[in-house]
């Protein structure tokens, strides 16, 4: 029989404890190589929409916050447009990269609240931020989404949230408003309230 010639994806390997050297060298104390760490700022001008800060920590199976974790986000702008789409906000990059604080494990993304983006069939998905998590001990980067707890109506009709069978797990995907435009989004890698991770 003929073979379908297709390559295999390179296997993932953990980012390890020294991921900051390559991905946030200034944060790691390696000054003077790159002028600024990539992804440090998502807002690069008078960005439209609601300014928000998403804060959180990543907890392991024994409840300890990861202090060596690195996170990236990718999202639409306030109008629901990704950066180069016609009319997208030029003052917003859509992409951010942050390390957790090495003492507390706390991370923070200063961004704008995203607008809704269409699902494949044209239905609107609720406002959300895609989140990717890498660290020592994580063999393949974890993909999840940050939805917003104050978007009840949009969340109720979101095509991705709707397909989640275990409804009681959905709150693990909801960032809680804390006032002043701050949202709290903690991630639990294991145990009760284990965060939902995605495969797409």
């Amino acid at each position, binding site marked *: 029989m003929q073979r379908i010639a297709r390559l295999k994806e*390179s296997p993932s*390997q953990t980012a390890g404890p020294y991921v900051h050297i390559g991905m946030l060298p200034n944060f790691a104390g390696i000054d003077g190589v790159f002028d600024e760490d990539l992804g440090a700022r998502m807002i690069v001008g008078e960005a439209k929409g609601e300014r928000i800060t998403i804060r959180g920590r990543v907890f392991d199976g024994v409840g300890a916050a990861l202090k060596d974790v690195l996170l990236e986000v990718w999202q639409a702008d306030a109008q629901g447009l990704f950066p180069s789409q016609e009319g997208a906000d030029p003052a917003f990059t859509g992409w951010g990269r942050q390390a957790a604080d090495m003492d507390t494990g706390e991370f923070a993304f200063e961004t704008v609240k995203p607008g809704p983006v269409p699902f494949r069939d044209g239905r609107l998905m609720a406002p959300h931020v895609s989140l990717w998590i890498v660290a020592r001990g994580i063999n393949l980067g974890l993909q999840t989404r940050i939805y917003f707890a104050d978007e009840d109506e949009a969340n109720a009709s979101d095509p991705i949230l709707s397909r989640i069978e275990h409804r009681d797990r959905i709150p693990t995907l909801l960032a809680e408003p804390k006032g002043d435009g701050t949202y709290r989004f903690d991630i639990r890698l294991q145990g009760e309230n284990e965060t*939902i991770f995605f495969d797409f």
Partner: protein
Amino acid sequence: MNAFKQKQAVLQTPGGHDRPGGGLYARDRSWHPAALTPAYKTSVTRSPTRAPISFPTTLGEETGPVFTRDRLGPLDADLVHNFARSPDGAIGPRIVVQGRVLDEDGRGVPHTLVEVWQANAGGRYRHKKEGYLAPLDPDFGGCGRCLTDEAGRYEFRTIQPGPYPWPNGPNDWRPAHIHFSVFGQSWGQRLITQMYFDGDPMIWRCPIVGTIPSPEGIESLVARLDMEATIPMDARVYRFDIVLRGRRQTLFENRMEGL
């Protein structure tokens, strides 16, 4: 002043989100390390226990950040010199690592950001949390980055990193390796992996390498020495190709791309 910040946001739409049949090939998770790999101890408390929930890719997974060449410095891809104060550069066996970023259909992934980090020739990282007794090299930082060209080719100049011991089992050593972070053209292709060196006996003893289920998978992360490409009296060349997820295409798209 910071043109890159504006420009990095230019969107790429590989294949387009709205074409029927678009979207990324499903990831073969059995080819990747499992989340829980007890021989690599840290994975025990950091591995999700529930199966990830699948959904078809949407615009957010089929697009991603784009980085432009104007932001890169001339020494960004030269780890021998990009941190060094001495004109001689970093200490260690000088090597060039070159290869291509491809997708699963073998097509080069153009203009994508590749970031690397590594220990110095003695196996020591320049990092606050690193306590190995091997000395720092004052002329070696350990980070580099570059963009692939239109054919997906990339190249770094560096020194061969040393193996190092790490707290896992009582006597575990990492083989010499370089960490790679690759973006591809969409969020769903995002990948971090490590490159190993042909002939290193430590590869087959390493619990982190051992998280990869198959010998074929492990071999695919081992760079080959390319003596023909080697620069005489300067640096040996190691070749390392990286494969990212491909995407479904329609016949129409194939024609558009001249295949």
